[in-house]
């Protein structure tokens, strides 16, 4: 039977709804056509085939499609590493205030003092949280922050006579770390984790030499666990003249409890779209500010932000800067949201965030661990379970993930980090209620039970979603990446 809310199956493409000659939103019109102002040879003959769909039908189309998404405002979205916490509604309002959303980035500084003040305050707060000296807000996402960090490392080393060649990346790292290092023209050397899932100090020592520009460390690691040797690691890295980059995607576990600057990190990025509650938008936007020690500050992207009393200005004259990593000053709208979050939480609230994140994860882990093994033990804000015990029933982690969808939950991050076989990486975040965690744990246990008793139900899942499992190999073999208009 068709589900409620009723959804035609499939929803047509917006192009399939198009019929020529129907009016769209009423817009201003010119008195004369383009030919009046431009030579004909510049003009196209046929307009681009955008759909002709009336406003009402466009609205219905995207409302209908919206119903085919899981989202945070429905139920737990326990994607490990993604920190899918509540996105406070007030953040959205603030970012949409005309005085924030309507300002042009090339406005002279004196007319955008509010924006610069806000950015300055965000920068100060993040520096305080990081325990570091300087920061850039320009990177529009975590990966861009990583890139910025590694380019800073290159500039730093270059200034010292040798840009170096290698970046060390633990095997548990997020894919953006090695991809970034490679993109910044460094050779990537992978570091095997030790039995604790942490950096193997011996291996680290062995890998280090004067060709190594930096180590990219995630702390807490992608296992959700604090790198207990971090001070030692920093020392080893620094002794080799290399820099310690910290992937701060997991700062939700540390807010107010530990400052990366305090344990030897030279540069780190934040993911404001994780730790600071800005929404993920179905894949973006984010913001990936990079905090650094004083030694790296000269290289930060331009413009930097400075304050003279009550006045703020963007400073372009920074001869050692690596340049620009974004067309303008980064994802300002995301910064407005993060600022709102920081102010509502305040110093007390931010510390509570980390407490809640760890409490929730440890509680959920405690409820699940008898059934789902934790090869490296529970993490702080997230834990990585292994689904290998289900193999004997012919059930994979992927199946558990799909089955969860039938219960109205999103799946965890799966098959990451790579060092845990059949990984289920679960991060509940601090905004989940105890009831929600209990419900989720109950369902996870029930699925394990199903896997034993009625494995077909699990391997055939999901059963209730708008589509069933999709043929991904067909998608890759015969790429169909856009609508093809019927040729008539």
């Amino acid at each position, binding site marked *: 039977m068709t589900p409620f809310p009723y959804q035609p*199956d*499939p929803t047509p493409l917006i*192009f399939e709804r*198009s019929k020529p000659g129907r009016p*769209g939103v009423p817009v*201003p019109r*010119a008195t004369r056509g383009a030919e009046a*102002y431009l030579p004909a040879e*510049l003009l*196209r003959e046929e*307009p681009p085939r*955008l*759909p002709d769909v009336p*406003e009402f039908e*466009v*609205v219905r189309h*995207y409302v209908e499609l*919206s119903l*085919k998404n899981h989202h*945070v405002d429905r139920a737990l979205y326990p994607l490990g590493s993604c920190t899918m916490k509540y996105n406070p509604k007030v953040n*959205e309002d603030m*970012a949409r*205030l005309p*005085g924030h959303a*309507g*300002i*042009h980035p090339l*406005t002279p500084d004196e007319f955008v003092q509010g924006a610069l003040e*806000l950015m300055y305050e965000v920068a100060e707060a993040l520096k305080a949280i990081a*325990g570091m000296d300087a920061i850039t807000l320009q990177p529009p996402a*975590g990966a*861009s922050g990583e890139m910025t960090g590694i380019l800073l490392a290159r500039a730093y080393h270059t200034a010292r006579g040798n840009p170096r060649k290698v970046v060390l990346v633990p095997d548990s790292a997020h*894919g953006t770390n*090695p*991809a970034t290092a490679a993109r910044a023209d460094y050779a990537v050397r992978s570091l095997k984790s030790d039995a604790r899932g942490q950096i193997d100090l011996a291996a680290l020592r062995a890998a280090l030499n004067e060709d190594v520009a930096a180590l990219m460390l995630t702390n807490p690691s992608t296992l959700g666990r604090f790198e207990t040797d971090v*001070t030692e690691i920093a020392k080893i890295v620094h002794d080799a003249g290399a820099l310690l980059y910290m992937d701060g995607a997991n700062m939700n576990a540390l807010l107010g409890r530990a400052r990366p600057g305090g344990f030897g990190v030279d540069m780190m990025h934040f993911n404001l779209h994780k730790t600071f509650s800005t929404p993920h*938008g179905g894949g973006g*936007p984010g913001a990936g500010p990079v905090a650094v020690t004083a030694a790296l500050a000269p290289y930060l*992207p331009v413009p930097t932000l400075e304050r003279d009393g009550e006045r703020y200005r963007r400073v372009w004259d920074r001869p050692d800067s690596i340049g*620009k990593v*974004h067309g303008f*000053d980064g994802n300002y*709208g995301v910064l*407005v949201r993060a600022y*709102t979050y920081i*102010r*509502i939480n305040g110093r007390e609230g931010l510390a509570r*965030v980390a*407490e809640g994140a760890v*409490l929730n994860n440890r509680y959920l882990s*405690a409820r699940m661990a008898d059934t789902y093994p934790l090869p490296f033990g529970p993490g702080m804000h997230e834990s990585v379970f292994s689904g290998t015990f289900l193999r004997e029933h012919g059930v994979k982690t992927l199946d558990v993930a799909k089955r969860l969808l039938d219960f109205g939950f*999103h*799946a965890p991050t799966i098959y990451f980090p790579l060092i845990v076989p059949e990984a289920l990486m679960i991060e509940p975040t601090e*905004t989940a209620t105890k009831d929600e965690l209990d419900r989720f744990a109950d369902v996870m246990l029930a699925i394990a039970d199903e896997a034993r008793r009625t494995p077909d139900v699990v391997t055939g899942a*999901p059963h209730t979603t708008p589509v069933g499992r*999709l043929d991904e190999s067909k998608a*890759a073999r015969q*790429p169909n*990446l*856009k609508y093809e208009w019927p040729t008539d």
Partner: protein
Amino acid sequence: MAYVPHSDADIQAMLETIGVTSMADLFDSIPAAQRSTAAIDVPSALPEVDVVREVTRLARRNAELVCFAGGGIYDHYAPSAVNHILLRSEWYTAYTPYQPEVAQGSLQVIYEFQTMIAELFGLDVANASMYDGPTAAAEAVVMALGVKPDRTDVVIGDSIHPHTRQVISTASGARQLVSLPFGPDGRVDLTKVGDALRGAACVVVQQPNFLGVIEDLEAIAAAAQEAGALLIVAADPVAMAILKSPGSQGADVVVGEGQGLGCAPSFGGPVVGLFAARRDYLRRMPGRLSGATVDHDGRRGFVLTLQAREQQIRREKATSNICTNQALLALAATVHLALLGRTGLRHIAERSLEGAHHAFDAITALPGYEPLVDGPFFKEFAVRTPKPARAILGHAAERGVLAGVALTRFPGFVDREALLIAVTEKRTDDEIARLVDALRTA
């Protein structure tokens, strides 16, 4: 406290289940030396209403000006319905569509977006978005360098946005940026193209260019093809409603800043980078791709596909390091284009064109204001000013008008006392008259 939902009783019960006695115990894994006890140095918690007041105060510290600034960010109008769609939490609180069965909404939108962008730019495939126009250009350069592994030169028109050039220079890893000057018409000097391109992996130009002028892409494409270099064009998608598409003129990759398609200026971000290419480069493209396929019952569905290009699979061998992109803004662009449709986008482009030409005529009739270059332009143009452009901006701002952008702020243009002025369909005749008046009295 605001968003941590527990009562004290909850916390007690949870601590007990965990088997610890206090919150502090949960942080035991942090060695004592690394634990920080001092409070974070940010102000105390505030009620929501007070934060609204504070953030509103900051918003008001930004002047409200009638916007004639462009330079990559344009004050086009986004129909109200765009924002209403975006405000559905189904869209903005979802993650990347990694579980396609519960993300068909996002995946279908990306597919529609890819179709629209490919269509506007006249190319075969487009991706799910990049951070912005300049970073998309940098990605294109990286791709070109990968396609042409034995070439290191990247030729860049001087008529490209200086920020785009900076981002390419910073973030593409390009070793050699070769400049291509522009002539008195503001267009890339075609006589210099052939030479420059020898041995280059690609040439990057902008359409319309930084000065608003429409480049002769066919000629550039011919030269690029001749030299075996890729042609990368950074194009304004709004202009595509009336201009020939770069794809049809021979571009291999077209990137662009999609902000004008339904995204607020927002001080330059979040906006949306566009990236389209010929099919040949499909497997070298950066970023996510949504592809159509079927489920076990043969129902059409969409998945993220060709992920073997991406960092989560390929790690250091990925075509790009991008992960989070600008999906929500891509949704905005998709809804925006759907609302405008074929004729709506055309009207907007024509009206912008007309307004810009009216403004140009009126301004260049003022004493001391002269065209900087004389090529054909779309919605933006540069005029020399009788006084320092910054001073004029100040004078106009007092009259409530942001009279454009001073070219002197950009590397490569520091000695050009000129204003770059953009006119969108949103600017009324009245507002244009105010601009002209402000310039006249400056």
